[in-house]
């Protein structure tokens, strides 16, 4: 462990272009996928939590099931769909960051929806009653609910980001861990582990956790400021 820590620091200080490329790809992928998942998941989550429309319960159950979808299954699905022989092979998206983001969005959005749905269900009744009492329409009520949920939106984002940056099953399937292109922290750790280079794997793991910590600190500070 000691050597791994030393190696992590050494690795960061070395500024190896490959490491920087892996960091940049990781950041691009996990930030994009978590933000897209947030943009999709928050409105749907609020809708599921606040409106009792017919067919809502089955949708919520399906969403809860999707929350538990194994990343490899999601990865395999996209691998088959976007392979050269697959129906979308002509789009040439396999082994690109774009497809990694798409697969992650599919994986993460249900988590955001579930988290928002649970929270909004708890506050929807008084908010809707009050908004209706003031004569507000649905759109206005939706934005009021979103405003009431700011703290939860931040928490959901952090959950989405954590899943995105830590996820390896789907990314390695659809990304292929191609150096200088689709290799991210987790797939690189996996590669180094398979090579028997454990200390480098741990070193990357430490860097990954550090980035995660910094993002969490930043978002939590913002959460505190914007949701008081």
């Amino acid at each position: 462990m000691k050597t791994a820590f030393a190696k992590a620091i050494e690795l960061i200080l070395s500024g190896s272009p490959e490491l920087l490329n892996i960091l940049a790809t990781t950041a691009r992928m996990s930030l994009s996928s978590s933000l897209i998942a947030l943009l999709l998941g928050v409105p749907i989550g609020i809708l599921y939590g606040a409106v009792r429309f017919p067919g809502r319960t089955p949708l919520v159950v399906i969403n809860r099931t999707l929350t538990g979808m194994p990343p490899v299954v999601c990865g395999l699905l996209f691998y088959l769909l976007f392979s050269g022989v697959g129906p979308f092979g002509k789009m040439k998206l396999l082994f690109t960051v774009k497809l990694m983001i798409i697969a992650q969005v599919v994986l993460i959005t249900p988590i955001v929806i579930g988290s928002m749905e649970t929270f909004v269900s708890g506050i929807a009744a008084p908010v809707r009653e009050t908004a209706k009492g003031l004569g507000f329409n649905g759109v206005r009520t939706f934005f009021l609910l979103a405003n009431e949920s700011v703290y939860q939106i931040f928490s959901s984002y952090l959950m989405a980001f954590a899943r995105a940056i830590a996820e390896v099953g789907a990314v390695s399937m659809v990304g292929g861990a191609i150096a200088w292109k689709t290799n991210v922290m987790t797939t690189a750790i996996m590669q180094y582990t398979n090579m028997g280079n454990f200390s480098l794997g741990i070193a990357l793991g430490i860097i990954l956790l550090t980035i995660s910590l910094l993002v969490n600190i930043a978002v939590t500070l913002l959460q505190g400021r914007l949701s008081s």
Partner: protein
Amino acid sequence: MKRVLSVVLATVLALSLAACSNAQTQATTTPATTAAPTTTAAPETTKAPETEPAAPKVDLQILYEQDNSMINTYTLMCVNPDAPFVDADGKEVKDVALNTIGAEALINFLLSEEGEKLAAGYGYEEYGEYLFYLLDDAPVSRAEIPAATEETKQIRLSTTTSVKDSGLLGYIIPIFEEKYGYSIEVYSAGTGKSIANAKMGNADLILVHAKSQEEDFVSAGFAKKLDNMEKERMSFMYNFFVLCGPFLDPVGVKECATVKDAFKKIADEKAVFISRGDGSGTHTKELSLWPEELGIKAEPESFAKYTDWYTSANAGMGVCLTMAEEMGGYILSDKATYLTFRANGGIMQ
């Protein structure tokens, strides 16, 4: 939401900047940029021990190598654009988009005098010994290599982990890319997965090391014969697998006359053996070394009787080496991965 994004981006940027400053070279992540060493390289280039100060001694040792039946031959194949591709449902798929021109360019480079010299010279710098040897009958290409065009620029190479992890590709490919303007995406996995990936239409050429699987690939019509080559399978370099085991060698495989005898002895004594079990080239080779009467094959049923000593890990080489180290077992490994494993002190607590 814009503010969230900017703060997050700023954080990552700050970290990257911190990483850029105070640059220091580090050998392990940037494979050799110097020229290939000659055969009469100076002896002091052996691995510097200072980089691994606290490395614990590794018990796992190379016990058997350089046996003819442990030859590990690497083969290049160009994926046939007219191959009988099928989708996940087994339905035929026509016109799978492949970059055959690019694939041929890379093959012709690797098999050119220059490419073969690079491959044969690789490894001394990193590991203190050569990792690959040229086959005596390796095909040599004198074909003109066209420069990359917009359509042929991207080449997808599906290969095995041992080729990539040894650093060989990271050493040769940039030279090729710089010279001809191509850009190569290397997908690396065990040979089985690597070939499957090509069959899914996701690779333009493959570089693998499992003869039986290669022959299946050819007979199924997936390989394209280059005009200037005799065969679809272009085997051009080799090295040896190594049989590793505990330093004390309780079974005594070192004394065996051939490696097949060593494997028989391991089975007779029921000594712990770690198998990759993942359809990789190493796994395929290992299966060929067991005494035939045991009937050990890739299918789990075939070794169900031997689970008290035969461990099918279904994992990468590094993970399997750790298992062997911890369980005091024997294992078949490619040499490059074992050397990396040893250099890193083996296990992590």
